[in-house]
């Protein structure tokens, strides 16, 4: 729908958004997956800028990472090595997975212009010692950000940022639910663009735009959704234009997602308390549904089953990021949980460096036909 054009345009050229923010005098901090404390960047008056790779061919990055590393890291590093991210004032890189543990090193030696802010958080995240550890890391990160922005990041500013992010997360979930009722109005690609745009713009502005769109969707006449297949997506990222087009072509819509790049962080709000830093320290202990956070009972699987059941999905589409071993580990036990619940699941592998999805196209078509009972 034409109301989505703003989001689609923004996602078409994140670089333009970066350059425009810098031109307007804003400092910008790159934010890599997963669960970095963007709120601190926002509280510092800087723009957090999401870095989740790009659909480009990586070549320079191969001097740093072997081929069996995911494209999110390869292509993000590639952009850095090409100088396309030189306008950043810093980049937050967490140690969430074994590949990311090396990203900071490769970036520091390859992209000298943009300083690295390491982000550590506790995997034993539900015990007080984990929160305390997280708090100590947030204080270190805050100090680094203060050095970059040149002023103190006050508690008031952090509390305000927490509120902005909470409102944004609520807006994203509201939109996701509204879009799920109108597959005739919102394509999978448009849905993705609406969510993704938040990574490249002021979150408060994004909230306003998203809520405006949700108002329109909620006011639209009810759709019968006849002839459509409803799927819940799960994985790291699902923004491949080719994939989203295949879904659209097969009249498949996304009724809810468990994608780290989309709704996973939105399901967990930060407590709005007098100590916002402590509240942020507790937050990673509360997020569920991600393969990179310690999950001994595979709560992810239970959450996914519930999401599929509650949203009335016909099945689950597992969007597997190639060479992402945390995802590969989760797949077997979580699929077993879906099987036990009688929820059909299709897994397709995506790689930002090979955007053509020939095999996936056939598999998705066959899956849709199976779900339609053809």
């Amino acid at each position, binding site marked *: 729908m034409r109301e989505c054009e703003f989001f689609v345009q923004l996602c078409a050229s994140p670089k333009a958004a970066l350059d425009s923010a810098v031109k307007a005098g804003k400092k910008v901090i790159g934010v890599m997956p997963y669960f970095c404390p963007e709120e601190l960047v926002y509280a510092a008056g800087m723009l957090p800028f999401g870095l989740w790779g790009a659909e480009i061919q990586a070549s320079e990055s191969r*001097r*740093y*990472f*072997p081929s*069996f*590393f995911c494209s999110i890291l390869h292509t993000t590093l590639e952009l850095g090595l090409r100088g396309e991210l030189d306008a950043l004032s810093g980049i937050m890189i967490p*140690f*969430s*997975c*074994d*590949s990311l*543990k*090396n*990203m*900071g*090193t*490769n970036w*520091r*030696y*390859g992209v000298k212009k943009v300083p690295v802010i*390491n982000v*550590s*958080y*506790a*995997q*034993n995240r539900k*015990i*007080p*010692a*984990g929160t*305390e*550890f997280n708090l*100590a*890391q947030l204080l270190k990160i805050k100090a680094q950000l203060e050095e970059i922005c040149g002023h103190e990041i006050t508690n008031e500013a952090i509390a305000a940022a927490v509120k902005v992010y909470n409102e944004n997360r609520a807006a994203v979930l509201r939109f996701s639910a509204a879009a799920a009722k109108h597959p005739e109005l919102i394509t999978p690609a448009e849905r993705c663009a609406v969510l993704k745009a938040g990574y490249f713009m002021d979150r408060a502005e994004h909230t306003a735009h998203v809520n405006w769109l949700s108002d329109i969707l909620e006011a639209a006449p009810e759709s019968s959704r006849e002839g459509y297949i409803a799927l819940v997506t799960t994985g790291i990222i699902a923004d491949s234009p080719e994939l989203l087009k295949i879904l659209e072509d097969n009249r498949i819509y996304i009724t809810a997602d468990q994608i780290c790049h989309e709704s996973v962080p939105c399901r967990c709000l930060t407590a709005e308390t007098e100590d916002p830093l402590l509240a942020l320290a507790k937050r990673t202990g509360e997020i569920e549904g991600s*393969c*990179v956070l*310690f*999950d*001994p*009972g*595979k709560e992810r699987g239970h959450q996914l089953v519930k999401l599929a059941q509650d949203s009335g999905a016909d099945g689950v589409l597992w969007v597997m990021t190639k*060479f992402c*071993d*945390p995802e*590969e*580990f*989760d*797949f*077997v*036990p979580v*699929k077993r949980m879906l099987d036990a619940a009688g929820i059909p699941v299709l897994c397709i592998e995506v790689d930002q460096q090979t955007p053509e999805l020939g095999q996936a196209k056939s598999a998705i078509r066959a899956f849709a036909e199976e779900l339609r009972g053809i």
Partner: protein
Amino acid sequence: MDEKKSAKIVLRELQDKIAQDAWDAKNRGEKVGWCASNFPQEITTAMGIPVVFPENMGAAVGAKGGGRRMCEYAEGMGYSSSMCSYSRINLAYADLKKCEELEIPFPDFLLCCNNICNCMIKWYENLALELNVPLILIDIPHLDERECGPDRVKYIRAQFDDCIAKLEEITGKKMDYEKLKSVMDVSQRSSRAWLRAVGFMSETPSPFSGFDIFNNMAVACVGRGTVEAAEAFELLADEYEANAKEGKSTFKGEEKYRILFEGIACWANLSFTYKALQRRGINLTASIYGPAFSFLYSNLDELMAAYAYVPNCNCFERELEMRVDAAKTNKVDGAIFHVNRSCRNWSGALYEMERQFAAQTGVPTVSFDGDQSDPRSFSEAQYETRIAALTEIMEENKLRKEAGKNA
């Protein structure tokens, strides 16, 4: 009779005894755990809790030729071929409940530690679900700076204490803190003896074949808190010292070149990788496995930090320094970097490591693609070609050096 046995035999027997002890305990109805190789063994040793090590199983099954079969079975379960081969072998075993190359008693609980990689967490999460047993994690976050700061020490210590409480509940055994102290002392004795033994690699020629480290390190990993291990490593160090004095070595043939071997051994191709070096007179005289299984500390807080200084947990600069120091101390002529398909943590900055290592040491380097236990990722032809190229350069360097001396 024992004093007449060589350290090699003593270590092998000790390794077998540790494995048998776990089986005996299991058969007696005691609770047995599966444990990560770099988990603080002081806890289980002091509490008298038997544990076995799935990573060691992965290495042993790989070395005995079962890696491919077990990995393929795991892939049949839905696991990706790009995952760690130790984990694939072990997850296959957890499902199959049998393995012709090596079996370990099934666990009543799991002890995980991610100081070597976060892959351990995912692997053990799946085991906990598959085997329906409790999982205890000691999370040791990757170091973001050179030193393990008080924030990390405090976090690790809290988990250490928490782990003891949970194990007391699971096994019904109580921690004896006096025993813990003595285990810490014995572990220091083992670590010092292990370091003394591998330290003889600096002698020219080295009194032993560097590949011996791969055979001996299992006990350093699983048994270093026991007096038997400490004595075995002291015996090993004495033997190496005697060899050094007499100019003898376990390395077969003349030691023409000395190299650093970076990365985990290719267990499934151990013989091939060794022979390609040995027949060219290349001895491994520097490896990170020396410090990898030595944990030096003088109190509990230092113990926590020691487990954060294991290879792969350190910041890059400290990791690099360890390699450069080993190369210089042990006077290497070249280095081989194993780009291990199984280990993203180890391989992710290896190209940068190789560049900086070469720049700082001035020695030639080559890399090759391989895997710790899945032979499908190793190419004999590529390895041969790379080793031949390295040998040529080392030979040229040697001739140039000799010419310089004679000029």
